[in-house]
């Protein structure tokens, strides 16, 4: 631990500062906020997957009780309102750019998925808006839906400027080298895998409340956002042409995001646009059905994987061909997720000399698909960790030992992969060994036999993952197609009395930043965490920052805070030297005290801050008054968390139910600031991965209707679906940030699905089952068992 650690500082499992408001019902979420005179908007959404709008009749609805206004795509076009933009595009294999279709915030003549926004009905009450919506008469000319990803290219073209329904055709790596490795291989391992489509399902549905102030001609938008500054930039500059300085975006308490609240959606733009037109506050709150239909979904890839092994079972090459379902429009990070956040992860923890991948991003008439917890990295890890197990089985090796012999050795860092990344540090054997011990891997066969005596199939499966967090540096991201920077910002303001306000550009929606960031500041300044307030989520209060996603908040945002604190300390030392009549170089700062070496002179932070704001005795010739510093931190590289997760399952052949009986994981997140919060992040990530592997699936029928559009149909993990989790850590500190941290928010969701499916297959291998798709639902598992046992009986 760094010097100066206090009992509440870095490394302490401090209870969260933000808890009490949430526990007492005093949290302030967007839907909790109301404004005098507010109107409510209800969106009429397309109930067709693909159709031309032939007419919209609003006369009857306009006369209904309480209705104030009704808007359609024609009004949007007339006002020159732009659509949400794609924040990151890629260059195609042939050098051409990504095809970007228009995305009007209310459909203009055509709808492209069930849930597409068609009409905004605004009324005095939500009930009145909903009632009036029933009176709006929309006629459609139905077009052929494009639902099946595999055949999307040969289906009806959805957008004029997206031929073959292909938004982009991306590649990375050396195709010739990968093919040569496959041609020369002693063993070629092949696997087709589907990464199932998910709905993020943050428990707080999206909401927005926009207010226009005619006095200073400014807008305030309260919205459920993970990145309020980006929302302000996109809505202000690209959609509504509002000067950024006239738009304040506030993301108050936000009830989970998992990626789905990164993007700017049509609803919040409509609220903002209409608030000026009607000079009344406009409020919208999604119901859960709307969340299912129109929140950006996640995953949905089809992959063809081929891996080459030499005669010693060392991996010599890998080729992955991926079809990614991008949905009906290009959401903000829909292009980068299956490309830049996917392809470079294909080396995993392994030495693979030759890798090539092609990713084609396809348009379908389904909801837009974008980053969901892990964003590209779970999809890469899933296919890689599945094929690792298939390879181990094929060559007759234990899957743990097969992984171990192919790991990048710990003395090989920094390690340059053939797919663009340079891993700064890691030790993959240490967490593998620890996780194997935690779950008693050696004792598994005895447990399998015991389960068999009870008529159950028991299986064990592991996954050794790497992820890349804190996407950066900005210049590299820009060269790869990013339209945003990827730094983070912080302002640290020491008040005259020595309390501290920290304004961060990140956003906390469950991650506990109020506590973790306060621990960093308290530790470095040698003060109590109760003296530190973390302020986030308000574009008027915080410096321009990029928000929270990609497990970046600590590694990038925390590093910015640490840098700003360092600047404060540097200035404070000069003030202290002046007050104590000492040379700068003689002032030592430790444990919250400024001392002069060799004397008993001493000042604390509040002495310095008081002098800074009441500068009667102050080094005016050298410093400006005040004690407030801002830092922007642009990382030199990604961070690379890694680890091993192991799942153990029991399957009841009578029902096909997979019971998750044990889970052990060991992660390397670098240094931990608050291990309690980190462990909570791991738990939650695993639960979402378990959901993907066993329970969750977003399914469209052949007409493009989402048939899993409620919690009655989309199976969320519940308390009785999950076991307790055994969680531990190893540490290799990140080499390129001062805190030595890597990020922990997505690891569980990245590591867990392949571990679980590998365990299911391991359980059923003795009866001849060799594959299982996600989710491993009871029906699917039951059928696999029956097919296998019937096949065995027939032999």
């Amino acid at each position: 631990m760094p010097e100066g650690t206090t009992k509440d500082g870095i490394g302490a499992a401090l209870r969260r500062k933000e808890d009490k408001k949430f526990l007492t019902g005093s949290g302030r979420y967007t839907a909790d906020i109301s404004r005098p005179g507010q109107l409510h908007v209800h969106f009429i959404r397309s109930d067709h997957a693909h159709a031309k709008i032939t007419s919209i009749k609003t006369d009857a609805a306009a006369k209904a009780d309480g209705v104030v206004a009704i808007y359609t795509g024609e009004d949007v076009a007339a006002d020159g309102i732009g659509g949400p933009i794609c924040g990151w595009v890629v260059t195609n294999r042939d050098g051409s750019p990504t095809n970007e279709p228009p995305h009007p915030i209310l459909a203009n003549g055509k709808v492209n998925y069930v849930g597409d926004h068609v009409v905004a009905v605004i009324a005095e009450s939500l009930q009145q808006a909903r009632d009036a919506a029933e009176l709006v008469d929309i006629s459609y000319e139905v077009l052929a839906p494009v639902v099946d990803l595999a055949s999307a290219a040969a289906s009806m073209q959805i957008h004029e400027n997206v031929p073959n329904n292909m938004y982009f055709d991306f590649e990375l790596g050396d195709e010739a080298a990968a093919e040569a490795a496959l041609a020369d291989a002693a063993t070629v391992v092949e696997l087709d895998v589907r990464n199932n489509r998910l709905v993020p399902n943050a428990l707080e549905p999206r909401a927005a409340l926009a207010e226009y102030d005619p006095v200073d001609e400014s807008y305030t938008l309260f919205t459920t956002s993970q990145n309020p500054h980006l929302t302000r930039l996109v809505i202000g500059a690209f959609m509504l042409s509002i000067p950024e300085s006239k738009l304040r975006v506030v993301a108050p308490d936000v009830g989970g995001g998992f990626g789905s609240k990164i993007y700017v959606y049509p609803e919040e733009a409509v609220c903002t646009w209409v608030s000026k037109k009607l000079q009344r506050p406009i409020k919208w709150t999604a119901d859960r059905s709307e969340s299912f239909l129109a929140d950006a979904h996640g995953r949905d890839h089809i992959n063809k994987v081929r891996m080459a092994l030499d005669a010693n079972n060392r991996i010599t090459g890998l080729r992955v061909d991926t079809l990614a379902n991008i949905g009906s429009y290009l959401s903000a990070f829909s292009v980068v997720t299956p490309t830049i956040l996917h392809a470079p992860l294909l080396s995993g923890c392994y030495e693979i000399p030759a890798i090539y991948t092609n990713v084609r991003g396809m348009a379908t008439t389904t909801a837009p698909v974008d980053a969901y917890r892990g964003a590209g990295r779970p999809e890469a890890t899933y296919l890689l960790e599945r094929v690792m197990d298939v390879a181990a089985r094929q060559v007759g090796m234990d899957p743990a030992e097969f992984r171990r012999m192919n790991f990048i050795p710990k003395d090989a860092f920094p390690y340059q992969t053939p797919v663009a990344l340079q891993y700064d540090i890691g030790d993959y054997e240490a967490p593998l060994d620890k996780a194997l011990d935690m779950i008693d891997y050696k004792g598994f066969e005895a447990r399998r036999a015991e389960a068999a005596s009870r008529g159950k199939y028991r299986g064990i499966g592991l996954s050794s993952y790497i992820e890349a967090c804190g996407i950066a540096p900005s210049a590299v991201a820009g060269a790869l197609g990013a339209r945003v920077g990827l730094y983070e910002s912080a302002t640290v303001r020491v008040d005259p009395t020595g309390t501290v306000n920290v304004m961060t550009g990140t956003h906390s929606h469950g991650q506990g930043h109020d506590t973790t960031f306060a621990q960093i500041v308290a530790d470095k300044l040698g003060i109590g965490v109760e003296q530190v307030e973390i302020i986030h989520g308000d574009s008027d209060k915080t410096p321009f920052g990029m928000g929270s996603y990609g497990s970046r908040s600590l590694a990038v945002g925390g590093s910015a805070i640490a840098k700003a604190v360092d600047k404060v300390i540097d200035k404070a030392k000069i003030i202290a030297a002046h007050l104590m009549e000492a040379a700068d170089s003689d002032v030592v700062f430790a444990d919250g005290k400024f001392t002069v070496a060799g004397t008993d002179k001493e000042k604390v932070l509040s002495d310095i801050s008081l002098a800074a704001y009441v500068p009667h005795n102050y080094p005016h010739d050298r410093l400006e008054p005040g004690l407030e510093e801002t830092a922007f931190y642009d990382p030199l590289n990604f961070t690379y968390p890694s680890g091993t997760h192991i799942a153990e399952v029991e399957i009841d052949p009578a029902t096909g139910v997979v019971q998750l009986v044990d889970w052990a994981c060991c992660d390397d997140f670098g240094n931990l600031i608050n291990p309690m919060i980190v462990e909570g992040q791991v738990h939650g990530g695993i639960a979402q991965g378990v959901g993907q592997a066993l329970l969750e699936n977003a399914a469209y029928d052949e007409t493009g209707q989402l048939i899993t559009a409620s919690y009655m149909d989309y199976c969320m993990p519940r308390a009785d679906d999950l076991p307790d989790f055994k969680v531990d850590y190893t540490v290799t500190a990140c080499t390129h940030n001062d805190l030595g941290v890597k990020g922990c928010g997505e690891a569980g969701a990245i590591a867990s699905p392949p571990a679980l499916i590998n365990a299911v297959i391991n359980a059923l291998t003795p009866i001849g089952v060799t594959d299982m798709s996600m989710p491993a639902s009871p029906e699917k598992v039951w059928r696999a068992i029956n097919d296998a046992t019937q096949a065995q009986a027939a032999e």
Partner: protein
Amino acid sequence: MTKVNITLNGKAVSADVPDNTLLVSFIRDTMALTGTHVGCDTSQCGACIVHLDGESVKSCTMLAVSAEGAEVTTIEGIGSAESLHPMQQAFHENHGLQCGYCTPGMVMSAIELVGKNPNPSDKDIREGLEGNICRCTGYHNIVKSVQAGAQMMGD
């Protein structure tokens, strides 16, 4: 419109509301107590759980007029920041919450669960919370919280 009279967190309240007003809307919109949340529209998530005459109910699935004359307790009525209910304290001590959105419903469910079963096993707790969805915690620390809360409520 119908006049609804209930006892809300120990205080008699009444208001005229449209007949189709849900109890959760009465609590959130009419009475401006926003600690009770809405997370779904199919009675699945449990974010809206309140106590009605001591029993936990999903307030999104009940009309306000159906609560006429009842005693309704919401998350705001069980403890305060200065004096947390033992179950609230247990969630704090055991990191049983992250984004906080499911938390009020989870705490109200847990209090009722422990009221009926003062010494619940982990299995009792996991099955007892089947009607509450949390997307953040993976439930591990919620189960620990309810165990600790049961202990503290028994002391």
